[in-house]
């Protein structure tokens, strides 16, 4: 009896089968990335409360009309110029050009900011006045609040005082990290955006993007000059290791100089959308 030869299975077509599977998968799946511009919406405002109006020079007004045209600080503007204008707003100080000293250099020193003379004859009418945060003052405040915390009678008060104390301690850390006093935007300073109901979403998002870009570029500039990394790199590093307190301090320092202050105006009442 002849011994049967063990026939080898031809595997040549396996590749074709696998290719078919691969192509099927490629066609049916969509790569869905969850990326976008993040925003924190303001909490709802009760109807009977008047929203306090900020000083006009402290608000950078961006309005977009139904033809997708921009009105920035009451003047028409191309969207290409929006970022620079927003940067000017964020770095300008009352007395001319900003900014915060970084080592022996001053970041943003050579930036030319077009100063606008206001009705009151002051040349800083279009910009918020940055206020000095000085080491001496901050130290004094910290001492005050430490005393308050120690003397606090109930837990509730102690909690509140501790919160304020922590914010002053952040400021002190910022001064130390930046090697000197810095100027901070007044609390009411903000970039305000208002759109029409017929504005297209694309334009809306481009405006949001340019404003965010202004903040991010300034933050990057400071972070690179001071810490040798862009702000985004700092944040990414921190995301990977949230126990790194030093890194968090650096991030807070950059944020205190250039806070994120982009807000959206309340939609006007009585407008019809459809």
């Amino acid at each position, binding site marked *: 009896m002849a011994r049967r030869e063990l026939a080898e299975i031809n595997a040549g077509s396996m590749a074709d089968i696998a290719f078919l599977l691969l192509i099927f998968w490629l066609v049916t799946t969509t790569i869905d990335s969850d990326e*976008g511009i993040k925003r924190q919406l303001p909490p709802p405002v009760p109807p009977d409360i008047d929203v306090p109006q900020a000083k006009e020079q402290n608000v950078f007004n961006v309005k977009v009309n139904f033809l997708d045209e921009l009105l920035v600080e009451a003047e028409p503007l191309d969207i290409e110029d929006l970022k620079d204008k927003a940067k000017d707003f964020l770095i300008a100080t009352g007395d001319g050009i900003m900014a915060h000293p970084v080592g022996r250099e001053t970041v943003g020193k050579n930036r030319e900011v077009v100063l606008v003379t206001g009705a009151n004859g002051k040349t800083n009418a279009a910009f918020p006045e940055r206020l000095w945060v000085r080491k001496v003052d901050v130290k004094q405040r910290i001492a005050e609040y430490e005393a308050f915390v120690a003397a606090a009678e109930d837990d509730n008060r102690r909690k509140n005082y501790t919160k304020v104390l922590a914010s002053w301690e952040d400021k002190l850390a910022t001064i130390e990290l930046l090697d000197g006093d810095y100027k901070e935007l007044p609390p009411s300073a903000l970039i305000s955006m208002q759109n029409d109901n017929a504005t297209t979403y694309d334009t809306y998002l481009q405006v949001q993007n340019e404003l965010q870009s202004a903040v991010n*570029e300034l933050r990057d500039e400071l972070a690179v000059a001071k810490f040798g990394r862009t702000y985004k790199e700092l944040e990414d590093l921190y995301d990977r290791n949230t126990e790194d307190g030093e890194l968090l301090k650096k991030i807070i320092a950059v944020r205190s100089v250039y806070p994120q202050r982009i807000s959206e105006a309340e*939609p006007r009442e009585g407008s019809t959308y459809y």
Partner: protein
Amino acid sequence: MATISTASLPDIVFMLLFFFMVATVLRTEEEKVRLIRPEASELYKIEKKHLIRYVNIGVPMDRRYGTEPVMQLNDAFSSPEMIQDWVSTERLTLAESEQSKMWVSLKVDKDTKMGIVTDVKQELRKASALKVLYSASGRERTQSGN
């Protein structure tokens, strides 16, 4: 002449297949509206995908539902007033400790008018779902003059 052995070719292709299967995310819901996302440069990527809930806004794919932009929640068209209920049900699907960390990703077609988007945002505020992400695809930063 010796032929090159192709025996390992299936293995290579299978590896490719597995790579794609692992690397891609399956879309969980069907998009019923036309969505062309705007482009932006200042993007933020949410790492914890299970915290994201989606709201789609755009013109319906199926012409029978009209040519005006509509909002899609989960798999159905809804009106903006439905958002508050939707937010509270979606919150319950998350672990208690993560309920306040929910993100709402607004996927809006770039040609949509802002009216409906504003409505949706107002409803989200009322529902205290304040963390939103305006979904966009990437592009380079615009060059600034300074």
